[in-house]
């Protein structure tokens, strides 16, 4: 069994935005996707997922609409807005700088 990491404070928003960059998804599929891509290392705490989604929607970075899921049930789908795309670009860049910097310190300090 691989170790599972709790998400770093503030990274959940970035991951959600990134997951939604491709296609619209509902809440469960967002958490599944994050888990899958990270090889089960990153686990999304459901208790923080939905508040985060609602918060992002309020900030205008994602929008939601009701649609039909793969199993034929009504589900709420989220997708990126253009403001969200811009936000994703900025945050990705910051993340890249941040992780590179941390990596350098870990190697050289």
């Amino acid at each position, binding site marked *: 069994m691989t170790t599972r990491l709790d998400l770093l404070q503030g990274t959940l928003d970035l991951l959600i935005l990134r997951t939604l960059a491709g296609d619209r998804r509902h809440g469960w599929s967002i958490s599944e996707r994050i888990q899958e891509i990270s090889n089960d290392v990153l686990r999304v705490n459901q208790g923080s997922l939905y*508040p985060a989604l609602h918060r992002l929607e309020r900030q205008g970075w994602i929008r939601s609409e009701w649609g039909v899921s793969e199993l034929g049930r009504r589900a709420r789908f989220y997708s990126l807005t253009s403001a969200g795309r811009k936000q994703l670009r900025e945050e990705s860049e910051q993340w890249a700088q941040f992780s590179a910097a941390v990596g350098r310190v870990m190697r050289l300090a």
Partner: protein
Amino acid sequence: MRALLRRNLAEAELREELDFHLEMQAHKHRVAGVSDTEARARARLEFGNVELVKEDARDVRGARPIEDFVADVRYGVRGLARAPLFSLSAILTISLAVGLNTSVFTIFNAYVLRPFDIRDPYSLYSLQWMDRSGHVRDFAPADIDLLRKRSSDGNDVAAYRTFTARIGASQAVGDAVGDNYFQMTGVRPALGRTLASYDRDTPVLLLSYAAWRTRFNADSSIVGKTASVRGAPFKVVGVAQEGFAGFFKKPRDFWIPIGAQPLGDSEPRTAAAANDDRPVSALARLASGTSASQGRAFFESRLPVLTASLPDSARSVRVFLTSRATAISPSMGAFLAFAPLMLAFGLILALACANVANLLLARGVARQREIGTRLALGAERTRLIRQLVTEAFVLALPSVAIGFVLAQAAVVVGVRTLYATLPPDLATFVRLVPLEPDLRVLGFALLASIAAALLSGLMPALRATRLSLADAIRGSFGGGSPSRPRTMLVVGQVAASSLLLTIAITLLRETARLGRIDTGLRTRDVLSIEPQPASHSTLLATLRTSAHVDTLAGAAALPLDMRFPTAVVRSDDSERVTILYNRVSAAYFNVLGIPVVAGRGFTRREEASASPAVIVSEAAARRLWPRASPLGRVVRFETKDGGADSIARYQNATVIGVARDVVVGSVDQGTQRPVVYLPKPLDAGACCLLARVRDRPIVTKKALDEELEKAVPGAVERIDLLDTFVTGAVYPYRVAYWVALMLGVLALGLTLIGVYGVVGYMVSQRVRELGVRMALGARPADVVRLMVSHSLTHAAGGAAAGSVLALGVARLVAANVQGMPVFDAPAFVSAFVAVVSACFLAALIPSRRAATLDPMAALRQD
């Protein structure tokens, strides 16, 4: 409503979204081969607390406070409905206090805040100017015309001159106005028309709505009829719009063109015919968008031209504009004048809040189990406080409506009482602006209720939620001393009510003292008559032959009513002294019953020739000749240069008599002011006649008035019984006393309820302890004494604090009202005793309950 619907929809969507998540998770487990129930359970387990997630999501959505508020209100209403007696008493207490305060605000609003119902009221100003020697002056009639000619840029000025006149049988106040007055102000007629520029000097009359209702019984065919103003016939052309009675504190009854103002001659002459150039006041309308300071600058640039021809000291240096949008211009002074009343009534509101806070505290104690449980279940303290405060709001909001209605009733009753208790002769001089409520008044009631809710709700809420969790769970709520804040509240209440009662009793004693003051004047059967100057001699002839009149005297100034003129005099034994003087006929002392205690009165010859002989009052004698008899001594009047009414001939006047000290001016100024009397012939036309009548003064006054009106129409400006001035001077003190007494009694009542509640509560808190005491042999009397002595200490402390406050207030009042005592010991003592003994009784009743305890039952309790 829509917000609520949206809330429900969002709630349903949230539930559906989370359900869907659980379903998907369970599906995933099922696909992996787990049984259905197991899959569902596992999904739920992984998800964690669904309700918590929902809460968090709701918080994010931002609707939380509103939802909580709605829930709190519902919860509050339900809780209060379960305790109807508590809710009712709390609501009534706050309503009463809010109502009283709103009634005061209604009056304040009517005078200071409510603009007149005319076009652009905020551009109307009174216009005055100050000359180089610092005198604030009005205008010559010609100045107004010149100002108007030069005011091309939209600013306008209108002249008016206020005067009193008898219309029909009673006194009225009116303005003689310039011909552009109504066109400039934009006052509308309710009937007929207002005055117009073409009226010029025709005798036409516009009535105020109130005068039309009270003096002419709202006669709908009034227009075209004739009314007599100072004996001259005036045609009524209209009635002014409802609620309008001039732009001033004192409402006006009528308006006439300034050119038609009757001067009161025996042959009626109008102002225009007489080339009248007496000064006029000015009302200005600034062009729209012009500020007061711009307006002032405008008139300051125009006035020097007008006054250029005057002597240097009389030239204009400054202009004053006073807003005429409201009856009293809302200045600092206006607020200060109302401040004592507002503070006194505000104190009642504070007391009522203290009582409600007390009730809430008691309820908080009763609810500590509920609150403790909720805290233990993880409710946030702020959340609970918010809920408790919301409950206070639920209590306070009905008070807006009840208080508003109560306030209007109080105003109506107050005005009725005022007119009912005023001496009838005075009632014709008292005028009030319309006191109808408006939105501002409603807003005030709302604000007062909200303030009351916060004041009474916050402290109990903070208190009730300050629980130790451990104690709460153990079911022990005795932690801290919940009775302390309640005791503090009651001590505050006792202080406030003893403050108000002390003031009330001081005023009562002052009123009684003034009522007892011997004016030294015979006022019971003496009438004062002020004739129109020009009709003086004809009127005198009628009075001399009247069967009603016993003795007749004349005076330049009326005792009890007018300010006597002052002069600077000197004797051989004294410094220069500023002294009051009056010119009187020989019979003056006889008619008013003033004994001449030394020397003699004026002779006919002295009266007729106004010879340089004077009579001094005892106080004047003491002042001018501290060590010797004044008889035969010389008084030197320092004369100012010129003047028709010169006292130059008295430069060296011989004292021929000493008169007993009497009240001069208003009753509250006492009898000790020095006066010098100079002789004056009865038929010299200045001011007033005094007539002692044969019998039944009130009936005779009316009869004589009719007789004179028939003989010389319009000649009598005023006719009054001298007694009226005495009662009139005492009346304001009586009103102040009644208001203070009402507030004091109300405050004491609220306080006693508070004392009763607190002692009752303390008894119930200490039942176990008292039981032990009684089981160990304490007698019932000991227990009662224990409980009562405790509250007596608090009551005495509070009352003492109240006395100290009252002392401060009395100092302030004494500094502003002549004759008020700074420290009226009997008033302070009796208020103190009254408050403490009332508190004693209020504490005794619940304490006696403690004495009837069955010790065994008390010990077994809980």
